[in-house]
């Protein structure tokens, strides 16, 4: 007998079976990029050109608009997509995952190729690049808040399908309270309260009565939809003062907003967007580097382990679900006071579900949620831009665009993401 106990771990390491390589995502990305190359790149008339406008009349530095040969631009963007597919294959060959930047940049490149193709040869129209990015960010706002809400809940083990309802409740209460007071900023205080209440109901049913969380979430969405629609068509319709379109002005941050391209995109937005930056940064740090975050993640992964070191599992879950609801509610304010619109029936239009997708694509981290939501926001903004320049694609198909992007993103183009191990499972002692 020569082997000793100390050798056992070494033997274990060398005998460990090697997982197979997974090239599925890389192949899918490659195929789509090739399609983009053929349709958008080679399909564009070779003489046509696309004009991109970057500067705005108010900019400090003037960057001239530039016109690119459409075919070249579309081919280049498709090649970027192909390169990213190649990178994904290279990483898969090493059995490693790719970072979240890959699907985000990839998505934007392919959509850019689409945009170039659509804008080709339309001399009268030009692509407003800065405007496109600004509205991407703006349209991403409810998605980011929703995805953050989902991340907070799921990290603690509660599945929050009710994001849609929380957004809608936030939008409704923000409009109502802001109209009553006559100040849109008060709406920003009211919105999280509405979302938190929806979150509280979810938390109680999930932790105290162990009801299936997906079912409760869907029912809550229906409940909020019904309630808000009822009040909209009764109280708000009879008394128009209770539902006014109040807008929040854009606040340009001195100096920062003068940076070319990024300045107007990032630093000439309204208050809700600035709150968004803070919330993402704070949650990213808190979730991964604070005592609270460590405990939350432990509760979501292995609640019994958390319990045996004295952490109150269900209390943590309730707290996170209410906090998540509040954040989603705040995101709901986007639809009314932050957009300068009055409340309308069903005005969230499924954004809560897209936010769930952003949460998954963002791999349950605030930073990832932001990046994923920006991708979806870009798809949404692109749809508007394509509609504006009179694209050859029927508008119904364009309306489907963000959702198709969502399905591809979530269907695992980025590799299988692992959710918190105990999400959706009630903790019973």
């Amino acid at each position, binding site marked *: 007998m020569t082997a000793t106990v100390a050798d056992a771990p070494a033997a274990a390491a060398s005998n460990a*079976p090697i997982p197979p390589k997974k090239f599925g995502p890389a192949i899918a990305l490659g195929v789509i990029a090739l399609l983009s190359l053929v349709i958008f790149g080679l399909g564009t008339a070779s003489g046509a050109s696309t004009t991109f406008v970057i500067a705005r009349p108010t900019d400090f530095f003037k960057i001239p608009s530039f016109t690119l040969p459409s075919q070249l631009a579309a081919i280049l963007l498709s090649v970027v997509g192909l390169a990213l597919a190649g990178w994904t294959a290279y990483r898969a060959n090493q059995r490693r995952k790719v970072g979240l930047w890959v699907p985000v940049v990839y998505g934007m490149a392919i959509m850019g190729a689409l945009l170039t193709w659509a804008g080709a040869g339309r001399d009268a129209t030009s692509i407003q690049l800065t405007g496109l990015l600004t509205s991407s960010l703006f349209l991403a706002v409810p998605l980011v808040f929703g995805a953050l809400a989902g991340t907070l809940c799921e990290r603690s083990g509660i599945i929050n399908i009710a994001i849609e309802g929380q957004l809608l409740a936030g939008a409704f209460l923000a409009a109502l309270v802001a109209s009553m007071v006559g100040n849109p900023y008060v709406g920003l205080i009211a919105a999280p309260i509405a979302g938190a209440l929806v979150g509280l109901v979810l938390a109680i049913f999930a932790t105290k009565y162990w009801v299936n969380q997906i079912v409760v979430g869907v029912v809550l969405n229906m409940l909020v939809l019904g309630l808000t629609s009822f009040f909209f068509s009764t109280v708000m319709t009879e008394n128009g003062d209770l539902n006014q379109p109040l807008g929040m002005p854009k606040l340009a941050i001195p100096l920062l907003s003068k940076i070319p391209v990024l300045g107007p995109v990032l630093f000439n937005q309204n208050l809700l967007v600035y709150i968004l930056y803070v919330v993402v940064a704070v949650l990213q740090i808190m979730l991964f580097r604070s005592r609270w975050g460590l405990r939350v993640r432990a509760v979501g992964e292995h609640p019994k382990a*958390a319990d045996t070191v004295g952490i109150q599992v269900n209390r943590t879950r309730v707290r996170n679900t209410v906090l998540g609801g509040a954040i989603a509610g705040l995101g709901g304010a986007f639809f009314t006071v932050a957009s300068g619109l009055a409340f309308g029936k069903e005005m969230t239009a499924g954004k809560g579900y897209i936010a769930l997708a952003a949460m998954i694509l963002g791999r349950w981290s605030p930073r990832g949620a932001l990046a994923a939501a920006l991708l979806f926001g870009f798809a949404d903004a692109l749809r508007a831009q394509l509609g504006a320049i009179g694209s050859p694609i029927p508008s119904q198909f364009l309306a489907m665009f963000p959702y198709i992007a969502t399905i591809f993103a979530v269907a695992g183009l980025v590799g299988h993401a692992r959710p918190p191990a105990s999400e959706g499972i009630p903790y019973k002692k």
Partner: protein
Amino acid sequence: MKLELRGITKRFGDFTANDRIDLLVEPGTVHALLGENGAGKSTLMNVLFGLYDADEGEVLLDDEPVVFAGPGDAMAAGIGMVHQHFMLVHPFTVAENVMLGHEDVRGPAKLLDLDAARAKVREISDRFNFNVDPDAVIEDLPVGAQQRVEIIKALSRDASVLILDEPTAVLTPQETDELLGIVKDLRDAGTAVVLITHKLREVKAVADTITVIRRGKVVGTAEPSATQEELASLMVGRAVSMRVDKEDATPGDTMLAVDGLTVVDAAGIVQLDHVSFEVKAGEILAIAGVQGNGQTELTEALIGVVSPDAGSASLDGDVITGRSIKDVLLSGIGFVPEDRTEDGIVANMTIANNLILDLHDQEPYAKGFALQPKVIADEARKHVEQFDVRATSIEQTAGSLSGGNQQKVVLARELSRPLKLLIASNPTRGLDVGSIEFVHKRIVAERDAGAAVIIVSAELDEVVALADRIAVMYHGRIVGIVAPDTDRDTLGLMMAGAHQEEAA
């Protein structure tokens, strides 16, 4: 610190899991709590640890009565517990797991002080020679190392009483020896250790005091000098023979031939790695190995619950991989699954219906669309009598039976078809000694009737007692097939991945 339990009683409904249990644990000693599965050992420790509330009785620390509302209180009082199923968060590092629940923070933002946690892990790891890296992620660590992390967790909270709940169930024999060494070191450092186990060998190796419980009651105490037979009869309440009576095998033709069987799970991990072996008619091949080394996947791939990613298996010349489960079962395979309550029976259905789960759509139990209740009931009564299932009626739900009787129902069903191959996974786990003897006798009888038999077991005693040949599995591979008289040290090393030549 001295720990004392006085008259602890814990009931679940009508069932009394702990009945007035007294226990005294002195500092610097190892106190073994010995009992069969289901005797109430774990319940008692969960009461002590604050996970359950006791219905009666009190806990005293250094003669002061204490009440624990939850595990946090127990830990603050200096009681640490290493649970049978580890309480570790898999995606976290060792340091994060150790700090969880009593985290040090630093800086104005009060962020986690991981450096302090790392230092603490290193200090304890060095003190007891644990060789644990604070930055290793738990899911990458072997089971033995995970267990040492659990001990570090307890010690980092200054536990002066350490409870180990069935700590060796998932360890290889070598890891077990290592753990017992650690237990002795801890004792010598002044810790009071409570060792919960049903394994006599371990008790005799380290215990200073032994308390035996049976059916929730303390039935006696013993000195470590007591023989294994004495301890065993105290534990089960009657004299037991530790052997299985069987004749030598008379193997016939090859019945099952497995060739390069490979299973990759959903997460992309290879669970079964090109496994090839043969089993002949009239022999028992025991598959030994620590839990989770591919045994489950092997049995499930054979009957078709999971479809193999490569390789094939054939029964008596016919390929069985890639066919439906029903097809496979009816071609002459009996299957006793490892998790009897999950996979073996339908708990809410009657014994009679459980007995025909496999044949419910076949003559004579069904004609056309209709079941034949009378035939089913007659057959059920016959089986219940043959297999000595202790039940009030065949209409009783299977879930209301004791573990041993549930297993008899499963066996009765699986042996009711003419079998060419019987696959039994941990067939005696959690059973009382009487049922174990019965199950073993039936398995040997099936062999003698000419069937090939595969037994999967994590218990080396069972493997050695039943096997005609032993195949040892490690990390999804068969590291060797050896004779049943191979010595335990060799088997143990093979279970840790060493090949037969290296191990012997």
